C-alpha cells in the first residue's frame, strides 16, 4: 500500500500545534484524573498512591501527539524536535498552573522527554495513514494501566548513609551534632543553587529523648524533629514530626527519620555517619530515587562538613 503524500509545509503548523496541546491536555487530564481517583479524602497527608507514573503519563501523551501528527508523517528528527517542544510546553504549564518547583521540573524533564519521545516514535508507525490497523484502543488501555499501576504499588523506604572523617575526638564532635549555628558557606551543589532548600542551622530543645529539634533550611523552611534516641558521644536519632511544605518537596517525599552516629577511631579522630530515611511518592521509583539519593547526600555532606569544621577548629 503506497503512502499518501505528506502535508505541505504551510499546512503543517496547525496539526503540529494541535498535537502539542492535545498531548499536554490529555496527559494533564490523565495525571489529575488518576490522582483524583486515588487521593485519600480522609487522610490528605497520605499521598503515597496519589501520583501517577511519570513514565506512563508522557507515553500516553506521546501517542496522542503522534495520532494528531499522523498525516504529517514525521521523520525521526521531527519526532525528536516536536517531542522536545511539547515536553517544554508541558513543563511550562506545570510551572505556571500548579507552581511546580524548578528543581522538580529539571529532574522530571529527562524522563518525561524520553517517555514522550518513545510514545511519539511508536505512534508515528502505529498511526501511519497507510496502516490498516488503527491502534487507538491502546490509549484507554494505557490509561487503565496508569491507574492500575498506581493502585498496585507499595511504598518502599529509602535510606542514604554518608560518612566523613573528623580529626577530633567524639566528645568534641558531639556538641556540634546536637546543634550548630548558621552555615556560612554558599551552597556548592548545583541543585541547591537551582532552588532546592539547603540546611542552614539546627537548634536543639534539650538533651533527652522526646526533646524538640529544628532543622532550618534556606527559603525559611523549618523541619520539626523529635529526639528518638540519645546516647551522648555516640548516637543521636530523631524522627521528623512535620513535613516540609516547600513546592520542591511537598507531596513528593515523606521524610521519616535522621541519625548521626559517632564512631571513635581511638586515634583522636571520629568517623561521623549520617543516615536519612524517606519514602518517595513519585514513580518510577528507580529513576527518582537516583536523584533523591544524590540530593540527600548533598544535604548530609553540607551539614557534616560544617560539623567537621567546627569540631576541628
Amino acid at each position, binding site marked *: 500500500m503506497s503512502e499518501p503524500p505528506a502535508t505541505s509545509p504551510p499546512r503543517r503548523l496547525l496539526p503540529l500545534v494541535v498535537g502539542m496541546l492535545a498531548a499536554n491536555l490529555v496527559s494533564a487530564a490523565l495525571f489529575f484524573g488518576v490522582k483524583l481517583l486515588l487521593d485519600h479524602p480522609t487522610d490528605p497527608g497520605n499521598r503515597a498512591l496519589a501520583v501517577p507514573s511519570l513514565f506512563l503519563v508522557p507515553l500516553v501523551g506521546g501517542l496522542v501527539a503522534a495520532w494528531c501528527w499522523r498525516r504529517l508523517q514525521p521523520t*525521526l*528528527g521531527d519526532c525528536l524536535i516536536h517531542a522536545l517542544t511539547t515536553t517544554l510546553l508541558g513543563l511550562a504549564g506545570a510551572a505556571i498552573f500548579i507552581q511546580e518547583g524548578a528543581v522538580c521540573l529539571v529532574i522530571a524533564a529527562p524522563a518525561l522527554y*524520553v517517555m514522550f519521545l*518513545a510514545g511519539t*516514535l511508536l505512534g508515528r508507525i502505529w498511526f*501511519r495513514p497507510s*496502516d490498516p490497523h488503527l491502534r487507538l484502543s491502546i490509549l484507554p488501555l494505557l490509561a487503565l494501566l496508569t491507574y492500575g499501576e498506581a493502585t498496585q504499588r507499595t511504598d518502599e523506604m529509602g535510606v542514604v548513609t554518608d560518612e566523613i572523617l573528623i580529626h577530633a575526638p567524639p566528645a568534641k564532635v558531639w556538641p556540634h551534632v546536637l546543634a550548630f549555628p548558621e552555615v556560612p558557606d554558599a551552597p556548592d551543589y548545583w541543585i541547591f543553587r537551582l532552588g532546592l532548600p539547603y540546611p542552614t542551622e539546627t537548634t536543639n530543645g534539650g538533651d533527652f529523648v522526646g526533646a524538640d529539634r529544628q532543622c532550618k533550611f534556606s527559603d525559611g523552611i523549618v523541619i520539626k524533629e523529635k529526639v528518638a534516641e540519645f546516647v551522648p558521644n555516640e548516637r543521636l536519632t530523631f524522627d521528623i514530626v512535620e513535613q516540609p511544605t516547600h513546592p520542591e518537596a511537598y507531596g513528593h517525599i515523606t521524610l521519616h527519620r535522621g541519625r548521626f552516629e559517632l564512631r571513635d577511631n581511638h586515634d583522636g579522630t571520629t568517623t561521623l555517619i549520617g543516615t536519612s530515611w524517606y519514602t518517595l511518592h513519585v514513580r518510577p521509583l528507580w529513576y527518582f530515587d537516583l536523584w533523591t539519593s544524590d540530593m540527600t547526600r548533598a544535604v548530609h555532606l553540607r551539614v557534616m562538613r560544617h560539623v567537621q569544621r567546627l569540631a576541628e577548629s
Partner: protein
Amino acid sequence: MFRFVVHRLRWLARVPGLPQLFDAALLAWTGLAHPARLAAMQEIEKRALALPGVRLRTHRLGGTEFARGPRELGHLHGNGLLDLRVGRAQRDALVAAGHAEPHHVFTESGWISFWVRCEADVPAALTLLTAAARA
C-alpha cells in the same frame, strides 16, 4: 553502553515497553551527539519506504522495523545500528567481503549488522536492505 545493555541486560527486554524506551533514549542521544547519523537514518527510512511493498513496523526490541508483508527484513536501532536478515549464504558472502559484520548478538545466524554513521553509508545500507528483501 549499547553493547553492555544488549549483552548483559538482555533479560530486561522482556519488560513491555522497556526496549522502546531504551531505543528512544538512544535516538535522543544520536540526535544530540551525531546529527549526521540521524540524517542518514532518516534517509534510509525514506528510501526504504520507496522499495516495493516495504512498510514500517515497531520492532519488539526497539527501533524501526522494515517489513514486507508479514516478514521482517530488518530493523534500525536508535543508535544507527542496522540489523538485517539476509540468510546464511548471503551473510557469509557479505561478511567475507567486508560489506557487513556478523549480527552483534547472534553472530552465527543468517543476520548481519551494519553501522550507519553518515550519509555516505546510505547507499550501502540500502544495498543490504535490498539483499534482505531478496533472501
